[in-house]
């Protein structure tokens, strides 16, 4: 299960002067839901197309299972893709779209009929067999695209922002369905999205990319709580940042002298040394607020918005600039312009070099 099933080794891909992916090493375990996230242009879609065989790397090797597929064309790879625009064949009806890949495999007619019908039931499209793609809603088209890829029983299913064109409510619903389908069929899903929340809600593991470089791979919790770089810290959720220097190092536990003059306890990756410049990351939900402005660092509430389960506050603190805070529960609240005292849990602050 933890063994790498899809492996990219030293993969580089450029289009003219533009380097889309530079020296990428990535190992993806079998049978899970793996996401690649990053801002647009970070190389995540190119990575997916390299695995699909729709692009060939300039250098490096790509393995699926034990097989080196680096130079194998897309139509001979044991992987299938759900495209961002769905790319359904407009001249074929739903059944023929789903059966397309099986026809290419020259499967017996009976088997094609059975597997296609089975798959249409799985994605809840039974009854729409004769419809043309343009007669379907966005969500239905997305499910045809999914069925068309899954019916081939691929070793790996690649999904390129498959929910990007849908509205929020539908997206949430389909996220649940995708996760459910992945668990049922057990195929390795590699999911590309720029939406960190979407990736977190579905994935077992997440890879964060930026400018063609892999920044971090880990479980959503690891990536959120222990970001490897400043980019990851800020791309994955909101982060309050404080610069400072390590004053005491003790394994993964540190004390940091912030540039504002305060010393705080924090955790961080091993290997930071005293005197090293670091950035302290504190998530909005780990900032505590006291009505007594004498407790902790003084700050003023400049904005407050009620979101239902949580409240978002903006604080202005002279020495540390603007901070974002998330409060839970009904007791916690601070009126606009209130002077408050601010602090954060020692265990919750995380250092990046």
């Amino acid at each position, binding site marked *: 299960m933890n063994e790498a099933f899809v492996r990219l080794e030293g993969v580089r891909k450029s289009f003219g002067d533009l380097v889309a992916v530079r020296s990428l090493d990535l190992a993806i375990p079998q049978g899970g839901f793996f996401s690649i996230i990053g801002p647009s242009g970070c190389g995540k879609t190119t990575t997916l197309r390299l695995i699909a*065989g729709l692009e060939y790397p300039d250098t490096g090797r790509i393995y699926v299972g034990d097989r080196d597929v680096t130079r194998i064309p*897309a*139509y001979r790879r044991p992987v*299938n*893709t759900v495209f961002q625009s769905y790319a359904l*064949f407009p001249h074929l009806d739903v059944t023929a779209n789903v059966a397309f*890949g099986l026809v290419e495999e020259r499967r017996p007619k009976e088997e094609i009929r059975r597997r296609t019908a089975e798959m249409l039931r799985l994605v809840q499209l039974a009854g729409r067999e004769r419809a043309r793609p343009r007669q379907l809603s966005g969500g239905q088209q997305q499910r045809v695209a999914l069925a068309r890829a899954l019916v081939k029983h691929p070793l790996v299913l690649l999904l390129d922002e498959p929910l990007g064109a849908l509205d929020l409510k539908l997206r949430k619903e389909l996220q649940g369905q995708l996760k459910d389908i992945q668990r049922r069929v057990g195929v390795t899903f590699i999911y590309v999205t720029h939406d960190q929340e979407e990736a977190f809600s579905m994935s077992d593991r997440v890879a964060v990319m930026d400018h063609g470089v892999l920044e971090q791979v880990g479980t959503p919790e690891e990536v959120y709580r222990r970001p490897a770089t400043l980019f990851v810290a800020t791309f994955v959720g909101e982060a309050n940042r404080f610069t400072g220097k390590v004053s005491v190092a003790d394994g993964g536990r540190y004390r940091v002298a912030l540039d504002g003059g305060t010393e705080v306890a924090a955790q961080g990756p091993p290997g930071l040394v005293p005197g090293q410049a670091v950035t302290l990351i504190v998530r909005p939900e780990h900032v505590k607020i006291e009505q007594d402005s004498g407790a902790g660092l003084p700050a003023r509430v400049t904005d407050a918005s009620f979101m239902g389960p949580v409240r978002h506050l903006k604080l202005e603190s002279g020495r540390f600039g603007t901070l974002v805070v998330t409060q839970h529960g009904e007791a916690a609240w601070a009126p606009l312009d209130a002077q408050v005292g601010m602090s954060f849990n020692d265990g919750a602050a995380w250092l990046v070099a």
Partner: protein
Amino acid sequence: MRARRHLLTGLISALVVLFLWAPLVNAGINSFNRDILMAAWKGATLLWYRTALADTTVKAGLGQTITIGLATTGLSLALAVTGALWWRRATARGRRLFDLLTYLRIMMPEVVFAVALFLLFSKIGFPLGTLAVIIGHTVWNSAYAALIVQARVLTLDPALDDAAADLGASPWRVFRRVTIPGLLPGIAAAGLLAFTFSFDDVVTSYFLVGNQTAPLPVVLLSMIRFRITPEINAIGMMVMVFTVSLFGAAFLTVSRLGRGARRALSLPSLADQ
């Protein structure tokens, strides 16, 4: 004052239209006229149609016209489709050059190509005849076909090629199962147009047919020089009905193509989810 000016322009327009259509109406009426001299109406007859259909020169000419038309259509489509597929992936410069060559073939007077081909074929010893005419027709018909097929190529989504390859289709299978069906309306329209243009061509055919069987329009030309009979009117009418219906079919296909492209552009509605 104003009304009178409108009356005048209206009158002139009416006269012009009448003048343009008078020959056709005249030919149409006389194709049924019993009077062989076509001087006066002497009652209706289908005699001239029967004569025309029994005339071996006319029949041979019609066969030749259809042979040339089909061959020209096939060749033009092959050139147009392969050209359009190359054009799809070409650089901007390559596209401009290709377009220039296409437009030149359309704008150049037909007689220029006909004479040039005649001289070239004589010089290299290529025999005049059916094949020479087919080549001559293909020169400009392939240009019209290319324009129509290219317009259709623009509506093809390159992601469909990726999707087909991803699902296991080799490049040839992608062409067969995705590209060709996508181009089909354009191919049909271009084919009908090429066949129609080839069918009523005189100039190129006249220069290049040599002493082989003359296609129908050339047969008509020589019949007129020999003697004008109502039979010519009958042939003219039959050719007209045939080409007009072909052209109508081509036009309908093209306009449906336009609607299809518009539909493809409109986004699927999410409201019915």
